[in-house]
């Protein structure tokens, strides 16, 4: 971009949002250079200059966003929507520079409907702030993302996120009724008032999982729930991971409605559970929770415990379950979480029950055997359960990766190739809830096969100049 172009774009952006809502400061450009994706973080960690956005723009309305996108189309410059920057996939990394579109000024709650139990809010509202506002009315948005303190409502939806209690309440995409979206060409549209209807093709879900490549979510109406009167948690220890998975499957297929099943594999139990909760155990540690009316929750818990015990589970009681609940986010943040100088990746996937255990062992074997020379650690847990299957949240960790940044990237990408190949060859999806971003973008064609060109045509139609978040989600 020439200096003249830069100043032309800047002056036009200023006309839209005002001078105070545009930044080209060194500090801002640096902070917006990376989300939580290991790769750009590593790049920074090694002291290498990251790709910086050219402008950070803070629009206050959907109309302003529409005008910004028109400017971006005129100058053919990338636009990267930014909510909380908490994504782990590089979805908000400005890999081609351009405009960083920080939507956090769109943070109003527009309506809380206590009859229909919905909340309508602008997409830049902080997750925890929204939750506090709902709690004041005895309500909750049951999307308990580990990133809630920093993530935004739009950030819940754009990558099709799952929260801790999705097993009962669904993913973020299951809670949204309708959205306002600014299309890449600047039109502002609103999806039908409800998602479940027979009024023609469902374009609504196109935007869920598009991670800003199809447009910018600016407003959403979400289903909310009453805060539960009771929340019962307990833990069970299994010596056999397959039996534990069988127990989880029965809880789901018999519709006992756990709000959470978190099953740690023996490696995670020995490391993560020990580190965060302080329990030293051999086996697979499983937490299950039931909520709602106390008597119903207690009955669901009792029936579930019977299933676990019949499959060889050892009841650890409530305290280990409640302690996990109280510390459930501590697994992810410093100093407990993943950190440098490690190389790491969360290769989470989802599949049906018939394939789940096989996929786990196949991926574990592939990663551990291929990268044994690097002392790779493979750990995993099973979470976000469905009536038909569950998510495998697996991780590889290399404590001492190559010091040279370029070599580290090569190794990192080779491990991902291995892990995702194991997923695809064993009937899994490349991702369950972190999204695709930059990290998994190169696997989209393999994932979708003959259907991929159709998605490419949709992208071309919606975003003819390819300005929206280029390099992400396969586009």
């Amino acid at each position: 971009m020439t200096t003249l172009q830069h100043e032309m774009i800047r002056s036009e952006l200023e006309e839209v949002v005002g001078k105070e809502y545009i930044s080209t400061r060194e500090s801002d450009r640096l902070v917006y250079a990376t989300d939580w994706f290991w790769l750009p973080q590593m790049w920074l960690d090694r002291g290498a200059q990251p790709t910086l956005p050219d402008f950070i723009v803070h629009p206050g309305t959907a109309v302003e966003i529409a005008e910004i996108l028109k400017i971006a189309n005129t100058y053919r410059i990338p636009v990267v929507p930014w909510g909380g920057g908490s994504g782990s996939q590089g979805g908000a990394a400005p890999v081609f520079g351009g405009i960083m579109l920080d939507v956090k000024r769109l943070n109003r709650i527009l309506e809380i409907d206590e009859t229909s139990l919905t909340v309508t809010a602008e997409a830049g509202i902080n997750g925890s702030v929204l939750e506090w506002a709902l709690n004041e009315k005895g309500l909750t948005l049951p999307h308990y993302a580990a990133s809630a303190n920093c993530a935004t409502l739009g950030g819940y939806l754009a990558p099709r996120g799952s929260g801790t209690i999705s097993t009962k309440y669904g993913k973020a995409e299951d809670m949204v009724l309708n959205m306002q979206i600014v299309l890449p060409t600047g039109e502002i549209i609103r999806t039908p008032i409800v998602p479940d209807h027979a009024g023609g093709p469902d374009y609504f879900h196109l935007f869920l999982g598009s991670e800003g490549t199809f447009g910018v979510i600016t407003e959403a109406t979400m289903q909310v729930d009453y805060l539960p009167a009771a929340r019962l948690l307990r833990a069970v220890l299994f010596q056999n991971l397959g039996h534990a998975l069988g127990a989880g499957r029965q809880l789901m297929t018999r519709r006992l409605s756990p709000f959470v099943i978190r099953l740690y594999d023996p490696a995670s139990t020995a490391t993560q559970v020990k580190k965060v909760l302080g329990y030293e155990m051999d086996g697979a540690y499983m937490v299950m929770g039931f909520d709602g009316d106390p008597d119903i929750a207690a009955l669901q818990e009792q029936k579930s415990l019977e299933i676990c015990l019949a499959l060889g589970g050892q009841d650890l009681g409530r305290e280990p379950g409640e302690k996990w609940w109280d510390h459930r986010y501590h697994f992810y943040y410093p100093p407990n979480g993943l950190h440098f100088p490690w190389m790491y990746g969360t290769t989470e996937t989802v599949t049906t029950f018939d394939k789940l255990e096989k996929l786990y062992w196949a991926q574990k074997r592939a990663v551990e055997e291929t990268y044994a020379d690097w002392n790779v650690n493979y750990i995993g847990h099973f979470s976000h359960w469905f009536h038909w299957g569950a998510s495998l949240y697996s991780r590889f960790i290399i404590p001492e990766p190559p010091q040279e940044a370029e070599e580290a990237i090569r190794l990192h990408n080779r491990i991902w190739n291995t892990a995702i190949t194991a997923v695809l060859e064993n009937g899994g999806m490349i991702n369950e809830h972190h999204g695709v971003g930059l990290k998994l973008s190169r696997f989209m064609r393999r994932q979708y096969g003959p259907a991929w060109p159709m998605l490419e045509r949709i992208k071309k139609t919606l975003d003819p100049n390819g300005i929206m978040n280029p390099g992400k989600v396969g586009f």
Partner: protein
Amino acid sequence: MLDNVISTLENCRFCLMCRHVAPVGMVTNQEAYTPHGMALLVTSQQRGLATWNAETVGIVFSEVDGGNSRTHCATDQPFEEALAAVRAELVVQGLAGTAVTQLHTHLTQWHNPYQPQLPQSATGAGQVALFAGDEAAYLWPETIPAVLKLLSAVGMEVVVGGYGRNNGLFAHSAGFPDLAAQLWQATLDELASVGAKQLLLLSAGDFYAFNDRRGGFSRPVSASAKVSPPDFIEVTDLLAERLAAGEIAFRKTEDETPWTYVDPTHAVRVPERHERVRGLVTAVMPTPPRELFWRKERAQPVGSTYIQFSSPALAERLTRARLQDAQASGAQLLICEDPATLHHLNRYAGEYGLRVQGLYELLAQRVIGHQ
């Protein structure tokens, strides 16, 4: 010099979990003004990816002091200490801006940033002293006579000390740990000279400065301390205890103006104080409060921290955000006991159709059986 805090900065660099309560980040919606952004900036500077210049140094001196973030930290990272250390390092390198340097000059010369006057020395003797400080002395002077009347009503005669002296927090926040310790120590020495064993404090900020930061401004303090620190207690806590014990009582006002209590700056640093002080307010107000959204454990500061000197525009935005919160609650009367919070709210309250009332004065007007 950052060796002791670098692990905290590296941890905060990889964490975004206090953004929902980071005051300046919230009013600006800018990533740089969060602990994550600031830690990323500092650690990047150490890696040669950023340089210290007026812009980047200005960012570092624009965060409040990390108190809200520390209170809500998912993994209890001492970000406030790290931030103070970074600022101290910038001060040592001569990179802090003019406003910060001026603050240092005023605090050194006058022990306060508000008036070119030295603190008044305590006179008399007694086992209980009241720390008047600089904020009550210069920003909301009605506080002190009201508090003395209330203390008298519960049978306490106190020595007033530290009149016109800062509690040390400004100096600590701005990167002058030794000066902070000197101010703190000067007050304790003054108390020792009058024989005080207990120090009453007017605000959450004073309590935090004396109780939680004792000896923590600078390592030499505890070694050179001439007296053992006395017991510290907030006046609101003392009055709440006496109210509960039936040793003091208040007439309710007849003013039914919709009101709210504003948890003052630094309130989140004093666990559970919010319920105790609300007990006092409801003793005099005839109607239930209109609660602010940003209250109790999630209370946010007004612009009364040291950034009123380093970044006055941001300080104003913090204050206006509280006034907007109050306006949205439907309240028309804002009650608080902290002199600095009252002063800053009062500067702009009229623009929002709001009125500000000192809690101590209100209680003093309504105390029963005392003229």
